[in-house]
């Protein structure tokens, strides 16, 4: 009996479970981002070298570090989906991709606007920015591959394979870009690694974590919609849809 119900019950359970997490994660993310950003923008001391332009760090660094994390979690979800043939995991991976792409885009734009006052130019082939650009391409590849398949069960599997291939390549790409950058060393370097005063570091860490929680919340919301869209022919989704229409 359970086996008979199994394929039906699973998406529904995943949908409900995700629904339980979403409000908590959203509230935590909003609180953290508010705290970290206000602290960083208003209360953190001005940097003696870069002046107030360094305040871009409170959005740039969280976006940059979490963009990589999001890719890795997407690949992990895809791997689970591939090995244990779990469609839920495939859809989770597909839901993370657009979120990660936007975060990567933010990291790129803020990095380049930070570069203008620091380096005097909007774009520098700095190793970190270049890696971030490649990461954006990898995300866009996953997203457009997913969009290109009409059958979304297949789409999720194909995108999953691509993200696993991508995650194996990320360290290699990063290493090669670093090597390339040191080969063609330009005179401009990002600020050296000096110890950060706690008044800068704490809000930065809060914002990094806040970005992580926000990505999780957004991915789960997307995942829920994805489950509904893929199970449109199932009675429980039909009921939800008709109830929504009646409202």
């Amino acid at each position, binding site marked *: 009996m359970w086996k*008979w119900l199994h394929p039906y019950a699973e998406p529904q359970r995943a949908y409900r479970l995700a629904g339980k997490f979403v409000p908590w994660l959203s509230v935590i993310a909003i609180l953290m981002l508010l705290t970290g950003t206000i602290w960083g923008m208003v209360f953190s001391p001005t940097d003696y070298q870069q002046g107030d332009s360094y305040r871009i760090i409170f959005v740039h660094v969280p976006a940059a570090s979490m963009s990589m994390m999001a890719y890795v979690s997407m690949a992990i979800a895809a791997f689970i989906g591939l090995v244990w043939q779990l469609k839920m995991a495939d859809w989770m991976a597909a839901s993370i991709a657009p979120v990660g792409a936007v975060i990567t885009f933010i990291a790129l734009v803020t990095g380049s606007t930070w570069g203008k006052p620091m380096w005097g130019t909007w774009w520098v082939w700095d190793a970190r920015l270049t890696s971030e650009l490649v990461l954006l391409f990898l995300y866009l590849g996953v997203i457009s591959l997913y969009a290109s398949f009409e059958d979304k069960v297949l789409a999720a599997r194909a995108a999953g394979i691509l993200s696993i291939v991508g995650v194996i390549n990320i360290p290699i790409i990063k290493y090669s870009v670093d090597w390339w950058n040191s080969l063609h060393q330009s005179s401009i370097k990002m600020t050296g690694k000096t110890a950060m005063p706690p008044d800068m570091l704490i809000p930065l860490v809060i914002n990094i974590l806040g970005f992580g929680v926000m990505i999780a919340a957004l991915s789960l919301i997307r995942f829920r919609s994805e489950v509904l869209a893929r199970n449109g022919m199932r009675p429980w989704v039909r009921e939800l849809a008709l109830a929504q229409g009646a409202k």
Partner: protein
Amino acid sequence: MTKPDSETLLSAKNLTCIREERILFDELSFDICSGDIVQIEGPNGAGKTSLLRILAGLSRPYAGDVCYLNDSISRNRDEFNEDLLYLGHLAGVKSELTAEENLYFNLRVSGYNEFDQRDILSKVNLTGFEDALAGHLSAGQHRRTALARLWHTNSRIWILDEPFTAIDKRGVAELEALFIQHADNGGCVIVTTHQDMGIISNERLRKIRLEYRFV
């Protein structure tokens, strides 16, 4: 009409297939035993080809499993592939190669290493066309180049999607005779066809019907 000592070769367990958000079939289960000749029936779009591809292991069902000798085909794929002969809509015949070369490569890829291509081709009435490029053959000859493999195989499970397309009456009769001989020797045949089969009697033929579903 299965013999009492027949063995279950292939079984479908609660197969569900969803294509473009439409359920083609849901919770479909059946066993196919040695000696069976099974015809999958149903209107266009009912999912006959999808079912055959799932049975052959080319497609993964949305839910459910296909078992070969009571073990999932995803687990013993190599043994299953050795015991399977699948011919789809697409014949797997290269138009740049001659009929003989096509047969040679197809059989080699299936693992056979000793055979006489000309002899096999003569069984599908392609004597004299061995050296013709498949691209220059007629539709029927093209199809027969693919079907020639049926005359040189020890796979027990045959899954054939519309094997009679472009085949003349005499060819169909020969194929049907081959099916009966294969089933009597402990094999099984699963086909879809829109043509009526003349030689295989209705008692001998097992039918699985798929309906077109709107939801």
